[in-house]
């Protein structure tokens, strides 16, 4: 167990800036990987974690080069090897499982060929032995019918299956060390939990060492023996997983853990101020100085060394870590938010809304109707009260974004009505809506990089809705823009900046400001925090909550992240395959009894706590189309009772606390089953 297989010594990697300055992305990183252990490397985007992981395979991305230090694999420096020598090690001794298997599998080659390629390169097996081995490997990663799977192309598999193929490919060469670069990011919650479970099984089964790189402390907590926390290209904390997650003694890790929304806690997570510094911007002092609440003058001038603390078996890079020891009992706290007054009037009503993506047949086009018997979204009835935050939750394909687009008028509904304020019907055609209705409903998109025009300054971006809806100009326009920026906590000087000059969190704030510029009644939030780092996510969530409390806006909040939804929403609607499964006040939806699908989702959530393991109750199969008859969840339901589920649409049952569940199982019975 104590044999070191790879050791990184004083590694710095950097690039030359346009001004000819040397800028480091990794600074003086040292760590050891022991045989059979799983090390989690955690950090936010830009912390250098992927660069470190790739360097451990002797791979340095184009444009970067090693400045100093070495990566010793079995005491040979990978960074000094020729590509011939590296080909012998990659895939055979150290193998990689990539972040996005969908893009990391070569599209024109069949799955079987790609695994065979690794076998041919790294083993001496002959053709028949290799074919047998391919089946074995596909079986090991629990892919259905391995024989036919080998003849499929990557695009014919679901995201989870692609990831499993990547795992099989990595295992082909029987490596001593597996590198996993965000292997579950981008997968659905239930799929993610299944893939993690598989990885844990493989680590145990084969005794392979693993390096697990992720931004997600929840995933890291599930697999790691040891955790390395990176910040701005440095290791700031390193130690046994349990210690790091339960008693973090670095202020960054402490803040990071506090900013993660947790299922068990209502209310918003505490946010950390600021964002990670850009590479090259720190010349002296601690890189965490300007975000740290323990910082002293010493921290500004001197940068702390990584200090080994014997009694905790931990390395920490902080002068003041002692203040955090014994102070960790308040990790499980959150900011309580003002509850919505549920007596308020309904502002938006969805009545029997169905939406279809089916292509119109020629005659239907003429008659302007859609004749799809099994639409993507069906029978959605939701009343949204003024000033509340209602969340739509579900995995990909659940129709949550589709509903949002329909409310915004971007997608026509097939059936049903959307009523706005005093039962006025909103046309499903955007062009038919009046300007005031358009103003009243605003959208915030998932990715601010794509929703903000890169050629416009912040001032131009914010002035567009103000000009369009309120005809402002000159001084008044400018005053309004400054007010808006102030509302989202950005200074006046941001006006002249372009989106590329802003950090991810700042961009999303501008997007929020743009939505609020229209003085809307309803804001539709489409996965608004998914593209953000955890610490920034908490800040944006807090901002949204603050704005809502001040201005009384109504949010329709779409997310796949149940913990985020728990933090922000007053009410939750759970969707599967475009059909409502459960709806109710969020504190009740997160309690049992709940719909079997909600139960599956809740069980699969990964908490940043090694003691809370996900519960895998349903298979992570992907259904392409909703079933034509019966309950939408029949295909995966762990509590299916029989034919009635296949044939009849289940009835709504109302629980004690007002959450409605659509299931054939009696609600009291569900409660006792789920105890």
């Amino acid at each position, binding site marked *: 167990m104590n044999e070191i297989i790879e050791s990184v010594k004083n590694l710095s990697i950097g690039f030359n800036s346009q001004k000819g300055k040397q800028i480091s992305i990794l600074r003086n990183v040292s760590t050891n990987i022991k045989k059979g252990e799983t090390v989690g490397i955690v950090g936010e985007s830009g912390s250098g974690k992927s660069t470190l992981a790739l360097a451990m395979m002797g791979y340095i991305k184009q444009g970067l080069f090693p400045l100093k230090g070495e990566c010793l694999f079995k005491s040979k420096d990978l960074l000094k090897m020729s590509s011939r020598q590296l080909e012998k090690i990659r895939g055979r001794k150290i193998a*990689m499982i990539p972040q996005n298997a969908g893009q990391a599998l070569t599209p024109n*080659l069949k799955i079987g060929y790609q695994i065979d390629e690794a076998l041919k390169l790294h083993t001496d097996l002959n053709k028949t032995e290799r074919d047998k081995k391919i089946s074995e490997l596909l079986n090991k990663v629990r892919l259905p019918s391995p024989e036919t799977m080998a003849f499929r192309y990557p695009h*014919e598999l679901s995201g989870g299956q692609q990831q499993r193929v990547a795992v099989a490919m990595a295992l082909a060469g029987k490596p001593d060390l597996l590198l996993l670069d965000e292997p579950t990011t981008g997968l659905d919650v239930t799929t993610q939990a299944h893939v993690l479970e598989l990885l844990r099984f493989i680590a145990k089964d084969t005794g392979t060492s693993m390096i697990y790189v992720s931004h997600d402390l929840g995933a890291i907590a599930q697999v790691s023996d040891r955790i390395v926390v990176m910040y701005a290209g440095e290791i700031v904390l390193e130690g046994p997983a349990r210690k790091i997650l339960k008693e973090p003694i670095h202020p960054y890790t402490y803040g990071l853990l506090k900013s993660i929304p947790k299922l068990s806690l209502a209310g918003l997570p505490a946010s950390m101020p600021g964002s990670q510094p850009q590479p090259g911007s720190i010349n002296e002092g601690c890189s965490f100085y300007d975000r740290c609440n323990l910082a002293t003058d010493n921290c500004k001038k001197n940068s702390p060394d990584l200090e080994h603390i014997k009694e905790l078996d931990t390395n920490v890079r902080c002068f003041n870590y002692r203040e955090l020891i014994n102070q960790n009992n308040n990790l499980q706290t959150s900011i309580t938010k003002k509850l919505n007054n549920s007596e308020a009037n309904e502002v938006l009503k969805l009545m029997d809304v169905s939406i279809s993506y089916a292509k119109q047949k020629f005659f239907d086009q003429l008659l302007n109707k859609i004749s799809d018997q099994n639409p993507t979204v069906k029978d959605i009835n939701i009343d949204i009260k003024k000033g509340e935050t209602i969340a739509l939750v579900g995995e990909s394909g659940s129709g949550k974004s589709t509903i949002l687009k329909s409310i915004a008028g971007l997608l026509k509904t097939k059936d049903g009505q959307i009523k706005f304020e005093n039962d006025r019907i909103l046309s499903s055609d955007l062009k038919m809506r009046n300007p005031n209705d358009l103003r009243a409903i605003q959208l915030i998109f998932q990715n601010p990089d794509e929703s903000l025009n890169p050629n416009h300054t912040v001032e131009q971006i914010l002035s567009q809705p103000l000009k369009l809806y309120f005809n402002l100009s000159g001084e008044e326009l400018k005053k309004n823009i400054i007010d808006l920026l102030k509302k989202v906590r950005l200074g006046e000087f941001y006006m002249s900046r372009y989106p590329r000059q802003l950090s991810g969190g700042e961009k999303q704030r501008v997007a929020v400001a743009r939505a609020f510029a229209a003085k809307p009644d309803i804001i539709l939030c489409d996965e608004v925090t998914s593209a953000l780092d955890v610490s920034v996510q908490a800040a944006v969530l807090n901002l949204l909550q603050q704005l809502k409390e001040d201005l009384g806006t109504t949010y329709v909040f779409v997310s796949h992240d149940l913990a985020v939804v728990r933090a922000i929403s007053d009410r939750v609607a759970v969707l599967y395959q475009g059909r409502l499964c459960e709806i109710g006040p969020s504190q009740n939806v997160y309690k049992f009894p709940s719909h079997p699908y909600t139960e599956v989702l809740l069980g699969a959530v990964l908490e940043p706590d090694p003691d809370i393991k996900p519960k895998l109750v349903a298979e992570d199969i992907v259904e392409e189309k909703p079933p034509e008859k019966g309950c939408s969840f029949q295909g995966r339901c762990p509590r299916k009772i029989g034919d009635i589920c296949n044939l009849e649409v289940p009835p709504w049952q109302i629980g004690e606390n007002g959450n409605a569940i659509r299931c054939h199982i009696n609600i009291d019975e569900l409660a006792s089953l789920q105890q």
Partner: protein
Amino acid sequence: MLLLILKRIGLGLITLFIVSLITFVGVEVLPGDACTTYLEREAYGAALDACIKRLGLDVPAYERYLDWASNVVRGDFGYSLSGEMPINEVLGPRVKNSLVLASVSILIGIPLAIVLGIITALWRDKLPDIMISTITIFSMTIPEFISATLLILVVAIWLGWLPGIVIIPSDATFYELLSNIILPVVAISMIMTAHMARMVRSSVIQVMASDYVQMAILKGVPYWKMVFRHVLPNALLPAINVVALTIAWLLGGVVVTEVVFNYPGLGRLVIESISNRDLPVVQALAIILASIYVGINLIADLMTLMLNPRLKSLQIRK
């Protein structure tokens, strides 16, 4: 799949129909008719009447169109005015000559372009790339009539290695043609090759930066194996359509080059028949060139469809 191919072919036929209509209408609305333009100052009295009778211009336009179109479908383009011989006989050798010129250019140009594109992409920003890229960009910017003229000046006049203009009858054999077409081929393929090489280069560079290539490297796949198995099939696929467009676009280059070199091909026939006001021939040429254009694009579409596993299974599933 079959349905899709039939659909594409159908669309191509519709395009051709529209082209034929446009050319016919275009010819119709010109002031005067084929006889007046052809006979010029003698276009009066008995000669004009005889001509009109001979060409059947006294029947209404739509009837003439139907008549003409039904003949074209059967492969008969009617009579040319100047030679007073069947257009098919005029066209036959010209089509052959132009096909020889174009296909030799394509056979040399496409492989060369692919090789150059790959070299420049793999040695990106290194010496081979800088040299080849400079040359390709340079030859892209020179229009054919200038490069052709320069080639004649340097190779034919100063060096005296090859004939400057083609002085062979239009029914010359393939071997007679070959020594004569070297310079025209160079002139045509220069621009075409340059365009395609740039396209292949950017496509290969894009694929080289993809996740799956990084994955192949990290899997331990040797460099050249990775290039041939993982990079090229994916990089060349999108190039097929561009190649088709370039070939179609090459037709225009062929016209210009043929005139400069006095080459007896379709291109020169276009110019000749236009200046002779030989409208039936112009009509025939328009249809032929359009069919080539449509045909090449059809082939390219079908090839992409066959080679791309994504599109293939998409079609089958539907």
